[in-house]
């Protein structure tokens, strides 16, 4: 099994979100970047397939050279090698198009990604990638088992889950449940040392074809301060008369 894990390089959850250049760009000044948390579930599941079923694991991102430390971190966690498509990601359509070329050239038969990134929250790259390749695709995946060429997949649905079966090649957009949070790995020193020796291939962008672009950002208007109440009667009154939610 040849697995490709798609990694998004995103600001750490606790980062302050600010914009620059007339609110047209994210201000990365002083921001720590990490592997997108949803992609970490995918990467951890891939490591399980590597260790238990002898799969090879390649990680990929579309971005400029500043994303390389994030790929190195994925290598330190245990991926075999990495690919960086050298391009500024304009939108999900373009990223998916670039990745479709990586999947075809690399002969990957399982692609794992997070269901969305925590920065743009687009939630579109895995589904678009599957459509470009005409591969089977499951979104919001909370469980994945593979035997030979057959996959059994659980996906979250509103109020429960659905169990599906499909053949490889397969594209999975995962979330918590694919592995549990306690199973996520922190790179150890040996992993970090080994990651330096692993191959990180840079391929040039081929398409540069986007369907949309970001124009500007704004922050939500500051909310008014929390109204502290002393008793439940007052709370019920406010929820009924002021907020009108009960």
């Amino acid at each position, binding site marked *: 099994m040849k697995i490709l894990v798609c990694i998004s390089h995103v600001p750490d959850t606790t980062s302050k979100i600010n914009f620059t250049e007339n609110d047209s760009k994210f201000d990365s000044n002083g921001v720590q970047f990490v592997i997108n948390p949803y992609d970490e579930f995918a990467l951890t599941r891939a490591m399980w397939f590597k260790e238990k079923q002898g799969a090879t694991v390649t990680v990929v991102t579309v971005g400029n050279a500043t994303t390389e430390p994030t790929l190195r971190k994925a290598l330190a966690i245990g991926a075999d090698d990495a690919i960086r498509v050298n391009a500024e990601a304009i939108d999900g359509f373009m990223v998916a198009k670039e990745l479709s070329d990586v999947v075809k050239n690399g002969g990957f038969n399982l692609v794992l990604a997070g269901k969305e990134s925590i920065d743009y929250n687009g939630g579109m790259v895995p589904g678009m990638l599957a459509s470009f390749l005409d591969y089977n695709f499951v979104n919001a995946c909370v469980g994945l088992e593979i035997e030979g060429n057959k996959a059994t997949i659980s996906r979250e649905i509103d109020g429960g889950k659905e169990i599906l079966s499909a053949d490889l090649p397969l594209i999975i957009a995962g979330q918590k449940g694919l592995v549990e949070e306690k199973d996520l790995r922190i790179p150890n020193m040996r992993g970090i040392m080994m990651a330096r020796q692993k191959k990180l291939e840079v391929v040039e962008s081929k398409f540069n074809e986007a369907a949309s672009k970001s124009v500007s950002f704004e922050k939500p208007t500051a909310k008014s301060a929390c109204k502290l109440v002393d008793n439940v009667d007052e*709370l019920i009154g406010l929820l009924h008369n002021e907020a009108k939610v009960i």
Partner: protein
Amino acid sequence: MSVLVFAETSEGKFKKSAFEVTSYGKKVAEQLGTNVVVLTINANDASLLYTYGAEKVLNVSNENLKFNAKVYSNIIKQASEKENSTVIVIDSNTNGLYIAPMVAVNLKAGYASNVVAIPNSVSPFTVKRKAFSSKAFNLIEINTTIKVLSLSKNSFGLIENKVEGTTEVFSPSIAESGIQSIKIEQTSGKVTIADADIVVSGGRGLKGPENWGMIEELATVLGAATACSKPVSDLGWRPHSEHVGQTGKPVASNLYIAIGISGAIQHLAGINSSKVKVVINTDAEAPFFKAADYGIVGDAFEVVPKLVEKLKEFKANNA
């Protein structure tokens, strides 16, 4: 030209979000000076959509048809070609988010998810969406002829706009899919977090799973779904399906009541799409008080039973 809305049904019935996307589609159609067409599959009563402005409904009636992303996205493609649609609106439930990117590629369309308002302008086509886990809005421009939008739940609301609609039977061809559904495991009889207008959520401040009785009682009185913070699901006090927050389920309810939850940034990232937030916590310095609209500084074990009692009285008087 038209605006095509996909209104999903569950066992033949529309969820509230189906009416919300219809309301939204109608407004976008007015903005573009065109009509809205609503596509639905196996609806018991498609005419319910007329209330929200659906001038024309395409109803696919086929008992053998169950949700499959490839099949459904292909049906939407066929409907949009038949109706010459330039904007396609899909809702943000799990099935909607699954099919929307597939629809976009099938129609060579640009796609915006988490959309919160009607387009800012139609030429160029710009629309506002949520980004950075609801910590910012992002205005994006879509430059393809066809645009696919998924509407962020509960961000637009229902707008009644009764029209004399017509329903047409639509019989698309059914695509082959390599994915088979084996079974569906539904948590029965409970209000789901995705559908709930009110969510009652408990944190580590409740000290143990044996204390969830009052949370469930409060949820029952309010007709709410129950949820929990990440530490609570990690400790196994409550099922993972109840975990709300950044890596758990997102909440976009009208009212979110957090009990014994401090309000870590990861938790707030998952719930800040809720309209009104209430916090009950002993620690007045808990970060949740900065995010909440209403708060009670107090012990959950005293406040919650009182709240249940008073809400029962309130419900009895306002029934």
